[in-house]
């Protein structure tokens, strides 16, 4: 599954291997920049940089806008410069992943510094492309269009230069862990996305909520917490310090214990209903954990990031069920002698049998959320997301691979690379 980090490496590789070709005319660059500038605008717009978005992002937006808009007269019959097109496609892939993962605004630890670091990486690549494009057009003749695009590229290069001065090792961001959230992706990543969708759909509709679903969701959260704890304890040196690993593992142990308690409904409590979608997704989670559990901290951060909102929704629903006395209780729990004849009845106001389940869900959510925050703030992002140089020869990807719309092709051996500007 393509991650932002992987696409970023492709973007940087492509930006640093730009070469002049016969197709690099002024018109093709004008057309090419329309796509690249738009994709960059969208990617930057998704980043939770903090502050007021329209103010914080104004500088970059202002220099990208004229390039994205293009010339006053429409470009007819002009093909965009191929290398700018591939950059735009890769940037578009990053933009789509960011938009999908940050739909709800992202978690607190993902905003601010981490988003700024990713912004720096994206704009650094754009800076290199702007300078290359500027240099390519410098000796071409096409008066008005050339002059204006050269000025726009100058502005862009000036605004983005500070980002390009930051060494790559200092701008590794935990946002690079984001991946395409596809239910059909392989491994626990994809299975978790499908499970989270099924669980959210169940929890989001009153008539679909059942005791069975509440137990299954809580149990699955316990299982995921337990498996994540195992991975954190086994994290390779450099991903987490022993102290951080111990602290995160403690939170995950609490999460597992609490969610297991939340899944252990008393035998005399129930809420009828069925959840066939969730049953299949729950089974897939168990199978994926046994067959192919993720090993890296980054992957687990992604998995837990998908399920934490479900944990919060579970807590909210559990609270509503208990406070509203919507659960059903067996008469034998109300009156051991005469109650059996009553069978199942709505829990009366005087009964609070479900309260421990709410407490357990609350403790489970808090521990899981805390573990997620710690994974985001204490994990060494450079170790978990960019363990190797960004576009080192052994990791560089072959551009223009067949059926390779976002640029993730096969690895290629390559000589030492350097920007060709």
């Amino acid at each position: 599954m393509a991650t932002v980090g992987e696409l970023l490496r492709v973007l940087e590789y492509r930006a640093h291997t730009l070469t002049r070709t016969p197709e690099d005319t002024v018109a093709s660059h004008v057309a090419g920049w329309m796509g690249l500038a738009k994709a960059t605008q969208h990617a930057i717009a998704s980043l939770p940089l903090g502050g007021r978005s329209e103010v914080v992002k104004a500088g970059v937006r202002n220099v990208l806008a004229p390039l994205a808009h293009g010339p006053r007269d429409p470009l007819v019959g002009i093909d965009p410069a191929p290398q700018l097109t591939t950059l735009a496609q890769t940037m578009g892939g990053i933009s789509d992943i960011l938009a999908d993962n940050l739909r709800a605004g992202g978690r607190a630890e993902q905003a601010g510094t981490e988003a700024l670091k990713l912004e720096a990486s994206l704009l650094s690549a754009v800076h290199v492309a702007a300078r290359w494009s500027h240099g390519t057009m410098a000796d071409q003749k096409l008066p008005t269009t050339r002059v204006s695009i050269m000025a726009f590229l100058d502005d862009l290069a000036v605004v983005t230069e500070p980002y390009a001065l930051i060494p790559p090792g200092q701008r590794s961001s935990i946002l690079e862990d984001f991946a395409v959230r596809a239910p059909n992706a392989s491994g626990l990543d994809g299975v978790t996305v499908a499970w989270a969708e099924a669980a959210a759909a169940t929890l989001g509709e009153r008539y679909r909520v059942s005791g069975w679903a509440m137990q299954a969701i809580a149990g699955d959260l316990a299982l995921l917490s337990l498996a994540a704890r195992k991975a954190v304890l086994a994290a390779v040196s450099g991903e987490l310090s022993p102290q951080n690993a111990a602290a995160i593992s403690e939170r995950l142990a609490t999460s597992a214990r609490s969610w297991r308690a939340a899944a252990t409904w008393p035998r005399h409590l129930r809420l009828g209903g069925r959840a066939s979608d969730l049953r299949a997704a729950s089974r897939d989670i168990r199978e994926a954990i046994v067959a192919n559990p993720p090993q890296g901290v980054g992957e687990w951060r992604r998995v837990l990031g998908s399920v934490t909102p479900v944990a919060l929704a579970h807590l909210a629903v559990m609270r509503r069920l208990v406070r509203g006395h919507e659960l059903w209780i067996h008469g034998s729990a109300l009156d051991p002698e005469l109650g059996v004849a009553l069978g199942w009845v709505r829990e009366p106001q005087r009964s609070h049998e479900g309260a421990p389940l709410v407490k357990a869900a609350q403790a489970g959510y808090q521990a899981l959320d805390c573990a997620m925050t710690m994974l985001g703030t204490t994990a060494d992002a450079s170790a978990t997301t960019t363990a190797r140089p960004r576009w080192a020869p052994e990791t560089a990807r072959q551009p223009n691979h067949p059926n390779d719309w976002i640029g993730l092709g096969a690895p290629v051996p390559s000589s030492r690379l350097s920007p060709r500007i």
Partner: protein
Amino acid sequence: MTNQLALALGHVRNAVWQLMGNDRDDGLFLGLEALDLEALLGFDDVDPEVPSLEPNPAASLVVARDLLEDVPDEVPPAAWAALQALIVKLG
């Protein structure tokens, strides 16, 4: 729906409670499998009975199986395999 199915479902629920509630690491995984079995048996939203607890989850499931064998027409075929596999796992 007969009383047998409701009673069997009650024993499966007991097994879920026993597995989830114990402190063993494998209890959680097995508890989730028992919960899956509960979903198979409760496909028609059967109101379960609340029978007395058996000494352990395996015994609860064996009682459930014995009860279901009296009403095979009411048992979803998929439940047999899941029930048997769980009994074997629990020894």
